[in-house]
């Protein structure tokens, strides 16, 4: 019987109950409410939809949201790689504390991060007062948006690169060294290609999170229309003006972007797992 090729029938109970509950709860909390955005958007005329999602103020907010999210994710990719390299490869005092605190942006409420960053980077803030004489203004400019998005995206690249770096066999680096490669060549041609999928996954995760971010940004951004106003804030502004159609149309655009990013991230994660020889 043990050698039978067909799988024996599953004797465990509770399939109907557990799957039934999970599907019902998923539908009620997530799927049906999310579908409301597309159903409501579909009831708009094309002109109504277009004027809501392509007015100059909304387009300016896409530029800020997507532009600053890309820039923040890129900065986090570079420094995230260096941070994970430091945590895995070097020993230094306080390494464990740094390692534990990397996740702070996941655990710290966004509003708290927002007011703390504003206090630091405003004109007379801890850091802002030294930048002011240099002519650099961060709070209440697009740079403020960037600082907040760097904060909330910081853990993603570290937490995707770190495990891959840890599992990386040192054999290939030893082989490269034996064959006469210097350290830079080894890093660029041997180590970096292995880490690339993980870096890109972390970059995409940080970008996806940054595009939708609201709480940490609104305090430090100053929210000046056309200059430092992010797209999620425009949804709230339209809601407060009882422009439900306009708010929903912008939300439909953002949701579509989120779905596309989700697909890209899933593909990147599959690539990361294949490249680093882990099971999917």
């Amino acid at each position, binding site marked *: 019987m043990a050698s039978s090729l067909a799988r024996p029938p599953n004797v465990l109970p509770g399939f109907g109950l557990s799957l039934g509950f999970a599907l019902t709860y998923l539908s009620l909390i997530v799927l049906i409410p999310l579908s409301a955005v597309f159903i409501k958007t579909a009831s708009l005329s094309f002109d109504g939809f277009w004027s809501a999602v392509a007015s100059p103020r909304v387009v300016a907010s896409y530029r800020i949201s997507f532009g600053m999210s890309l820039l923040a994710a890129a900065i986090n990719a570079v420094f995230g790689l260096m941070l994970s390299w*430091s945590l895995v490869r070097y020993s230094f005092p306080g390494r464990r504390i740094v390692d534990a605190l990397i996740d702070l942006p996941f655990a710290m409420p966004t509003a*708290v991060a927002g*007011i703390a960053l504003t206090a630091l980077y405003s004109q007379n803030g801890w850091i802002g007062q030294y930048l002011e004489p240099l002519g650099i203004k961060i709070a209440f400019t697009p740079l403020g948006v960037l600082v907040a998005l760097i904060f909330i995206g910081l853990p993603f690249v570290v937490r995707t690169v770190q495990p891959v770096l840890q599992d990386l066999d040192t054999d290939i680096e030893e082989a490269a060294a034996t064959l006469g490669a210097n350290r830079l060549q080894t890093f660029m041609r041997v180590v970096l290609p292995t880490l690339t999928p993980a870096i890109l996954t972390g970059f995409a995760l940080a970008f996806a999170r940054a595009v939708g971010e609201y709480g940490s940004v609104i305090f430090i951004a100053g929210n000046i229309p056309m200059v430092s106003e992010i797209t999620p804030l425009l949804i709230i502004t339209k809601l407060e003006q*009882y422009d439900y159609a306009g708010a929903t149309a912008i939300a439909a655009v953002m949701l579509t972007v989120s779905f596309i990013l989700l697909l890209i991230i899933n593909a990147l994660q599959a690539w990361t797992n294949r490249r680093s020889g882990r099971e999917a």
Partner: protein
Amino acid sequence: MAGASQGLLTAGNRRGSRYEINSATRDPAWIKWLVLGLSLSFFVLFLLVPLIAVFVEALRKGWDAYVAAIIEPDALAAIRLTLIAAGIAVPLNLVFGVSAAWAIAKFDFPGKHFLITLIDLPFSVSPVVAGLIYVLVFGSHGWFGPWLSEYDIKIIFAVPGIVLATIFVTFPFIARELIPLMQTQGRDEEEAAIVLGASGWQTFWHVTLPNIKWALIYGVILCNARAMGEFGAVSVVSGHIRGETNTMPLHVEILYNEYQFTAAFAVASLLALLALVTLAIKTYVEWRASREPNEVFEE
């Protein structure tokens, strides 16, 4: 967020120096100090200083002003509402997480991968959109708006809306910790228990639960931290009625916008403490789980 919580358990190893002993993996000293210097400066500037700033600003006017800001009635009402919202959202998402993981890990059915993707969906939705969808369904102009107002039931700009928005944003936390772990563990142990005559619930309590307890705690504390700290989604559905529909993060915003900076940072410091406690428990759980043979956190 997907993937970010994976593989954390291997983070705290002691191999840091192993690479530096081996000449093939040792970086030149100047590179080591450059990379360490740049990455740690980045860490200090963007993570450590903001964290310290919260506590320094909170205590700027002394301990008495700090305590006064926290025991003020509106602040206490906000703390109470935050505890209520998390107290409902976390247990519901826990039951969901366990059911979904049981169905997905212990049984074979078509569409499993698609279901896992759908469970992750709330992570990729902007918190503002998460709030908006409930306004579209339950708001006065929404699908059920006229029916709800006929029976005088308030969901939007009231506590139920806040609870719903909190459930949405914390939806995947527990499920996504349990699913990969229970898939790795398979169903051999449960099958043995059933064949030996245990009931389904006995099997779950005595066989499954001990195997997943650390992942469960891990998911619950992360879920709780997000539930208590959520701002965007709750902000959309709250209506910002002082003492009634303000959670702690919303109370922080109101105080801050009224230029009561010290009071705002005082309430914010409670949330920052919660974040630190969450990270401490998380680190402990990772350490414990890495010592248990049965529980492999990584996918």
